[in-house]
Every structure is written in C-alpha cells, then in structure tokens.
C-alpha cells in the first residue's frame, strides 16, 4: 500500500463525458488567459498588489479539483487561483479582490490570490504562511468523517511547504484518524529560488506517504488526465472511508515566485523544455482535437468567450466601489454584524 504508485489513468484517455472534458479544457484555457492578462496589467502598473503565477501548473490544478463535488472543500495556497476558479469562484469577484474592491470575496480585507469562498465554493481563504491550511483541512475532514456524509477535503501546497512541521503534523494526524482528505503537493520544482534538492533529501515527495502509512502517488502535471485519474482514485478512497492519499504532481513554475521575481535561478533549458513539450494546456487541447472532441470552431469560440469574460470581469472590478474607510475596524467580532449584511452590490458574501 505505502509505495509510490504510478497511476494507470494515462491509459484511460477519455475518463469523462465529452462535455466535461471540454469544460476542463475551457477552465484551463481561462486560467492561462487570466494569468497572462494579470501579468500584463501588473507590468503596466495597472494592477495593485502582487501576482503569484500558476502558469504551467494548470494540469495539476484542474486535474485535482475536477473529481471534487460542490460540497467537498478545497484548501489552496497563493499559487492555486486556477484551482479556485475550477472549484467555482466567480471571475468577477476574483478580479474585484485583485483591485481591492468591496465586491471582492474578502471585501478588501485581503488581496490578489489570497482569496477564498467558503460559503459558496467551499474554498479556504488563502494565507501566506505555508502550509497553514493543512491543519485546518484536518478539521474539515474530521467533521465529514463524524457526519458520515461522504464529503472530502482536498488540500494543495507546494514543494517547499513540505519542509514545514505543519505538513507532517497534518498528514500524520490524518493517517492516524483515517480521515477523508487528499493531500496534494504541487511540485513545480522551485520554492521561490529554492530547488527540490535543497528542500528534501529523498528523490520524490510521494514516497513520503509510506512514512505516514498512506498511499503516495506521483503524476505528471503536464497531463491533466493523469492527474485527474490519480485524484479521482484518491477522492473515492477518502469518500469510501479508505483514508488519506498523498499526490505529488510534477510540473515547473514557469514564472517567478511573484511578479517582481525574474526567476533567473531556473535553468533556461529546463524552462524552454517545459514550455515546448510539457504545456498542460496545449497537451490537453491537442489530445481533445485528436479524439475529435473539439475542433477549430469550438476552440475559437472558447477563446472568444474567455476573452469576453475577462473583459467583463475587469470592468466589473473597476466599477465596484472601494470599501468604506469607516468600516476598517468592523467585522473583528461576529456581534457587530458587518459580515451579515450585503455590501450594497450584488454578489456580497453572507456569513459563512
């Protein structure tokens, strides 16, 4: 059980109905476009705050979220905006958050990809400390186990976060209690400037599963269906009482840690290789074209739709008011009612 297993989902190249596969591609293409546009706006000085690009990791993000139900929960990090979009976050309100507007999910209390929508899409509001959401996922999973309702928690962190004590605490605890949780590591090979060989001494992260007594699976993040297959197995295992799984999905971080970081420490040949032959979006598009599930017309229409959605969301964000400065001290305690009321525009959050 506790060995590194390569999923055989790669052999199953049509694991979902065609319309769901098209939707997966559309989500990946949307996320890619959003990432590129946000970076462009950032470089033009038109985007306040920071960006943490997930470009090149769409296979991981969409692959692990796709098996989740709406009632399952997701515990992401700052780099996992793609996963949150796949889970159901509304692009309008995501961009409103980037621009610090009241219609953002966190009403300006936090910015950029430090975002979450617990009341709606059941995603944890990202925090910077890594992997601070892993212990929280333990609690959600415990609640699902206690209720016996079959729900699953899925947490994502990066390769660097696996060096942190919290990572070990949470996985160990989940194994002891056999909790319905899936532990995903987005191994994009660099934690800011720190490569894998400076983070851990073993060849793979997946084989650490054995240390906790849980299965560990290593998948190719460039192949969204391989990721999906492993994630689906892990989610079903958790849902049926089989306990946690550790999934290591390997890709490359195409951009810097954050927008300001030119990432010169990433070898040029490595980056060029990944962009040329391990682009999860291009790979999946080619795959669906080969199977006849999408054609040029569909792709053109998909792209037009994506671009239109971004323009609309950007306009929505810029049109949304800033939060009232007088409200800065509100919402610490439940009793002042700040979070129970809508902020005056459609799409406000209710209490969680």
């Amino acid at each position: 059980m506790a060995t590194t297993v390569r999923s055989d989902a790669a052999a199953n190249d049509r694991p979902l109905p065609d319309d769901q596969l098209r939707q997966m591609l559309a989500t990946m293409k949307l996320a890619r476009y959003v990432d590129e546009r946000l970076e462009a706006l950032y470089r033009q000085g038109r985007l306040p705050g920071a960006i943490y690009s997930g470009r090149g990791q769409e296979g991981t993000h969409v692959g692990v979220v796709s098996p989740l139900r709406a009632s399952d929960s997701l515990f992401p990090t700052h780099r996992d905006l793609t996963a949150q979009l796949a889970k159901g976050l509304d692009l309008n309100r995501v961009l409103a958050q980037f621009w610090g507007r009241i219609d953002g999910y966190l009403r300006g209390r936090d910015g950029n990809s430090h975002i979450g929508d617990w009341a709606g899409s059941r995603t944890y509001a990202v925090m910077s400390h890594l992997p601070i959401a892993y212990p929280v996922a333990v609690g959600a999973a415990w609640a699902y186990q206690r209720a016996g309702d079959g729900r699953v928690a899925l947490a994502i962190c990066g390769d660097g976060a696996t060096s942190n004590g919290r990572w070990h605490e949470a996985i160990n605890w989940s194994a002891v209690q056999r909790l319905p949780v899936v532990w995903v590591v987005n191994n994009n090979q660099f934690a800011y400037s720190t490569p894998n060989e400076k983070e851990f001494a073993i060849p793979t992260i997946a084989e650490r599963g054995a240390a906790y007594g849980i299965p560990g699976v290593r998948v190719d993040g460039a192949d969204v269906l391989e990721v999906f297959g492993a994630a689906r197995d892990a989610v079903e295992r958790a849902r049926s009482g089989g306990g946690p799984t550790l999934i290591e999905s390997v890709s490359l971080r195409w951009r810097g840690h954050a927008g300001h970081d030119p990432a010169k420490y990433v070898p040029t040949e490595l980056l060029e290789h990944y962009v040329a032959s391990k682009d999860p979006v291009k790979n999946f598009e080619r795959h669906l074209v080969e199977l006849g599930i999408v054609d040029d017309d569909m792709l053109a229409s998909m792209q037009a739709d994506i671009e239109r959605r971004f323009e609309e969301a950007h306009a929505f964000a810029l049109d949304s008011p800033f939060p009232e400065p007088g409200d800065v001290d509100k919402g610490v305690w439940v009793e002042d009612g700040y979070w129970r009321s809508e902020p005056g525009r459609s799409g406000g959050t209710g209490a969680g």
Partner: protein
Amino acid sequence: MASTQVETGAAGHGAEPRGKRSDDGQATYLIAIAEALWEEMERDERVFMLGEDIGVYGGAFKVTEGFMDRFGPDRVIDTPIAEETIVGMAVGAAMEGYRPVAEFQYADFMSSGFDEITTVLSRYHYRSGVRLPVVLRGPSGGGVRASNFHSVNPEPWFAYTGGLKIICPAFPSDAKGLLKSAVRDDNPCMFLEHKALYRRIKEQVPEDPSVLVPIGAADVKRPGDDVTIVTYGAMVHKALEAAESLAARGVSVEVVDLRTVYPLDEDAVIRSIEKTSRALVLYESFHFLGIGAEVASVIAERAFEHLDAPVMRLAPPNHPVPFSPPLEDAFLPQVADIEAAVDRLSAW
C-alpha cells in the same frame, strides 16, 4: 463570596482524583470548570473536546475525568502532540459547524500552536466573515514551583492578535459562568485557568446550568475608597489579602477583577479610579508589555483629571519563571509588595 484555602500542593502532576462538590455544596475552581464543560457538552451536541491525554487519562489535571465515558471518544478526542494541528483541527471543525473546545495541557504549549492561533484563528473572521466558535483552554500561571515551561501567562502574546477574547477568571463562579459564555460565544475565545487556584479556592457555585457570566465585564471584588487595585487571575486573591491587612491600618482598597483581559472593561476601571484617584495595576504577566501595561495606559489617557498620583504597576520582571522557591517568590509580586505599593500610592 468566600475564598478558603483548601490545600497547598505542587504543580498538580499525578493521579489526584477529580473531586466533587463538598458536602455544603461548594465547588473548587477546577470542579466549577469541569461542571461548565460537562453542562455545555450536554446542552449542545456540536460541542466537542480535543487535547492531549484528555480522554482515557482524564486530563493532566483531571479536569476531564469521566468525560470520555459519558460523551464517547468521538466527542472527547485524544490527540497527537501536534499543537498547530490541535488548533487547525478546531478551526476546520468550527468551519463545518462544530463548537470545539481545545485543551492545552499547559498554557505554555499554546506557543507551540502560535501560528494557527495568531494567523488563522484570530484573523479569519475579520477577512472572510466565517465564524469560528472555538475555545482554547489550559492551565496558566505560576507560584506552584512548576518552573519555566509550566508557569507561563500567555495572555499578552495572544491579546496582541486582536481577534481572540481572552478570559482569566479568579473565582470558581466566574470560571464556570465565563467558560459557559465562551463555549456559547461565536468568536474565538481563550480561557486561561490559573493552576494555583485549581484546588485552593472553593465557593458556592450556581447549579443552574443557564447561569452565565458575561465576557468583557470586570467585577469589583471588594469596594473601597482610597486606592484601586486593578488585577486579574491569582493576583486577585493576593490583592484581597493585602486589602484586608491594609483595612486594619485604615486604608480602604477597592479591588477590581478584570475577569476578561481582552477586550478590557475600560469603563469599569475608570469608574473605580474616579472614586479613589489612586491606581495600582497588579498583574502576573510580565511588567513589560503585560496586560497591566495596557491598563495603565488606558487609565493615564482617560482618567488623568481624576488621578492624585501616578499610575503604579506591580508585576514580575521580563524573564523566565524560575524554579527554586526563593527565586520564584522573588519573581512574583507578594502580599507584602502589594501593601508597600499601596502605602507608596497613599503617601503621594
């Protein structure tokens, strides 16, 4: 409300049996806390408890003895030694509608969960509107020869986060009523039980499970006219002892028990200063940046017109709690130190 010296003792290690109320119906501070937990567990199925050794063993201080038999191992959970995840687990469960009460074997080990407490628990509602009705509780304070790592007063560390209600009761009735309020509060609460008081203090405690004490309200434990002592926790009892001795010398001391240290009941403190014009802030957290440092600032800001003397503080120095009895006694404010401070204030 009487306080009786029941027994002296060491840090509470070992298998002391959980007591019961005495024949005349008095409960110790520890039993009052256990009653609060038991009643809230019975009242609301969403309440559950987690911590190290609280189930099978009944807790290091035996607060939770008998709980697992009554409520079952899925509501009284023995955890691994993983304080970050004790807190994180409580947060996640609270996000899914439960009302966790997490025990820290000693309040000193709350710092092992510092990040989840200060980064997650205390901030999450402000950023997102998601309610976290979590209670963190544990034995705090010194004076029992428990040394560096079993004597801390962690309240200043966690008051600094701004999103945790922090409660430090001095009496059994307050402890019971406040813990019940904390469990029912939809905000994160930290409930610090002074271990020196666990078995040393007993009094009549309400039996009616609907009786609550409000969080954020101070209480005048002894009215007086000449000097105000603002204090909390075990120091309340030393203040009362000093007040009794000073009364015999004609000095009338008013003792204000904060009960909740965050948020502070500033109005109650100021009302007392308006009456007496002289303030001694007595606290067991460190002199530097401890709770009393904030209280003294508030008094200086808001009651300047009423003061006849500078605000005085009496608290331990800013270093670890030592073990050897004469060292620890020198470290902590003693009754004689309190009397001397009041004398200096009175003479101003």
